[in-house]
């Protein structure tokens, strides 16, 4: 027979200070866990939503990313023979040559320090190739003009990117581009970018060559054939499924996860001690009570269970509180400088169900580990001796 839950609940308030301290410790551990992992989850979510499975991204072999790559015109010409290359409604081949450059723009927060924002020069085909790119406000730029459109995340994160404002870009930073539209890209990494007409960008940055090419295929089933054609002897470039390229950029987040695991493991040991201390205090203070319970028929097992449940009550509540606190930062926008592309990626911190589950697992583990030893001691209370002192 188990003890009623209200017994455990009320017991928590007997030693308010000790309970509160344990509660705080566990809540802090959960908060740290959730916030750290939300960084990784946010970056991953943003990169996972970038690209389309039917698209192929082509860069120069050896280049670490689009930012260090360049394609010669004859190499691009060879790409036109790619098997499965789709045609747009207007009959154009869906091959988008893109020029990837960077510009420094102050952040809106963090004291306005400068961020290296990616600027992508594209032709009109790009909007058919990257079909998830949609204009939210304003309109597209016109080719041949000093007009740009900005991603939704970039507009929120960096200064002076509203429609109508002017941004100094180009190699000398002296070309004034006017923002004419804001676009979204399904929440993906492209939303951190600025898009401009490629020919104008090429002129402003004194760069003749495209950095990369994005190809839209008739369907995802064409990807293997297209990749082997492009990587093969005829073209000798490096093609990857667009979604794979962006997934690889997320590799860095693994380090955050590893670091978090180590940190939480150590903090977890501290939390176990806190729980154990509280529970020992509870057991010691309740010797006679326990003996009493034993006399009226509760067995050892239910006594043990009662203490474990009591500790779990504290840790689970603390976990809920820690998670609730972490929700305050969830959804806020951060950016990080990728060491592969050397441009910033704006992303939203995300406390996902997976993170909540991990937090719950950690707090449950801490609760059980911390309560086990005290609970065993409680169950071994010698009834007669304890009662004699009453």
């Amino acid at each position: 027979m188990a003890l009623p839950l209200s017994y455990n609940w009320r017991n928590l308030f007997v030693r308010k200070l000790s309970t509160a301290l344990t509660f705080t410790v566990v809540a802090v551990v959960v908060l740290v866990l959730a916030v750290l992992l939300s960084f990784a989850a946010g970056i991953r979510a943003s990169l996972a939503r970038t690209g389309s499975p039917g698209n192929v991204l082509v860069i120069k072999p050896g280049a670490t990313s689009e930012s260090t790559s360049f394609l010669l015109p004859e190499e691009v010409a060879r790409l036109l023979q790619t098997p499965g290359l789709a045609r747009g409604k207007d009959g154009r081949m869906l091959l988008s040559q893109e020029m990837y450059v960077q510009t420094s723009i102050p952040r809106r927060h963090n004291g306005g320090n400068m961020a290296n924002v990616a600027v992508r020069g594209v032709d009109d085909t790009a909007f058919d190739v990257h079909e998830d790119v949609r204009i939210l406000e304003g309109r597209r730029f016109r080719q041949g003009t000093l007009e740009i459109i900005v991603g939704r995340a970039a507009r929120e994160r960096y200064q002076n990117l509203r429609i109508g404002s002017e941004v100094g870009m180009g190699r000398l930073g002296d070309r004034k581009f006017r923002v004419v539209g804001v676009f979204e890209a399904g929440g993906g990494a492209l939303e951190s970018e600025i898009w401009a007409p490629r020919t104008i960008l090429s002129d402003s940055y004194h760069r003749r060559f495209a950095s990369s090419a994005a190809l839209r295929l008739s369907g995802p089933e064409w990807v293997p054939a297209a990749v082997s054609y492009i990587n093969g002897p005829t073209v000798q470039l490096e093609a990857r499924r667009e979604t794979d390229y962006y997934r690889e950029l997320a590799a860095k987040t693994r380090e955050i996860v590893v670091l978090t695991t180590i940190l939480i493991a150590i903090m977890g040991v501290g939390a176990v001690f806190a729980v154990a201390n509280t529970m020992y205090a509870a057991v010691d203070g309740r010797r006679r009570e326990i003996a009493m319970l034993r006399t009226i028929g509760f067995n050892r097992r239910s006594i043990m269970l009662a203490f474990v449940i009591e500790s779990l009550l504290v840790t689970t509540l603390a976990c809920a509180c820690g998670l609730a606190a972490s929700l305050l930062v969830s959804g806020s926008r951060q950016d990080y400088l990728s060491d592969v592309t050397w441009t910033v990626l704006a992303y939203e911190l995300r406390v996902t169900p997976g993170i909540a589950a991990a937090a719950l697992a950690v707090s449950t583990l801490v609760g059980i580990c911390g309560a086990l030893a005290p609970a065993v001691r409680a169950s071994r209370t010698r009834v007669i001796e304890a009662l004699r002192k009453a």
Partner: protein
Amino acid sequence: MLYLMYLYRNLVRNRLRTALTCAAVGLPITIYVLSMAVVDGVNRFLDNSARQLRLAVTHKTSIVNPLPAGHRAKIESLDRTGRRLVSVCGLRWIGGKIERDPRPLSTIAADKDTFHTTFPEFRLTPEEIAAWHRDRQAIVVGSATAAQFGWKVGDRITIHPSVPPFVPFEFHIISTAPNAEDPISNWFRMDYLEEKLREVRAPEGLVSFFFVKCASSEDLNHFRTAIDDLFAHSTDETKTQDEKSFMNEFITQQFDLPRNLTILAAVTVFVAVMAATNTMSMSFRDRINEVAILRSMGFGRWLVFGQIQAESMLLCLVGGLLGALGPYVAFTYTPLKDFTVPLIQYLEVRPAVCVNAVMISAAIGVLAALWPSFLAWRLRVVTALRNLE
């Protein structure tokens, strides 16, 4: 002696708890030592940069924009005597990898004629300098990189760059620069890079940044503004800063390692305090009767106070010592000593950091025992004895 025996007995009474407390203090101390070793390494790297009296000249709009190589002659013209401005060296980063090996390299092209005067701390021998001038494929590899890849002087290596021109470069190793503060980067001749760029029709005559070696710190301050003034309102304006701020910008832009690691170290120490406090109060609660008996037998309150403090401090010191010794031994005597960290290269766990950590663990011991020892100090013997079981 008797007191020491009592201390020892108390510690071995509950071996599991003692071991767990040691671990709970030792593990965070290990993390502390490792993070501080990295911070320490970054600081030493920056201090070395500051000592070199060098300026870094980059493009004003963004560090990723290259500068025309012709800027060098203009900078040099600021001091034709060469007494204040020692030398100017154009640098271009090509990164790179070797065939079938994912480990990234840091390979940098440097102007042939001014490389050894701008980086005198490399202390290349006259023979090495002669080899550098004689052979256009010469490369000076970092000592750590050489050890990592098993390279030695005289070897021929092929590096595939991560930036244009994307064609393999064949190099002849002329030195492993044992004296260079940066044991990672490899340095080769700019004219060889230009030759390769010409082959693929990629833009030539560009450098990522210039390093300017000055004669004194006054000259350093003078040229910091003089160079930017020289190029003001030109088509390629510059941003000049001393080498330390230049390097620091790199570090903070990425993950801001020093700041984040310091936070990490502080959090782990906080956790260690928490864990130790809890064990100390647990073991005190177990022994409250003993304390009462001791006191009633005539042992003074300060003695009891001291005993609890000594026990806690000893426990934390042992934990801290083990925690600090672990990484020290691992990174000084085992193969881990060749482990390289980006930017600061070797993770050198210096004794100073370890001593620091041990002192912190002693402080943790004092803090942890504060409350229980105070309770013991003010314990009312009569009340405690009345509750004796």
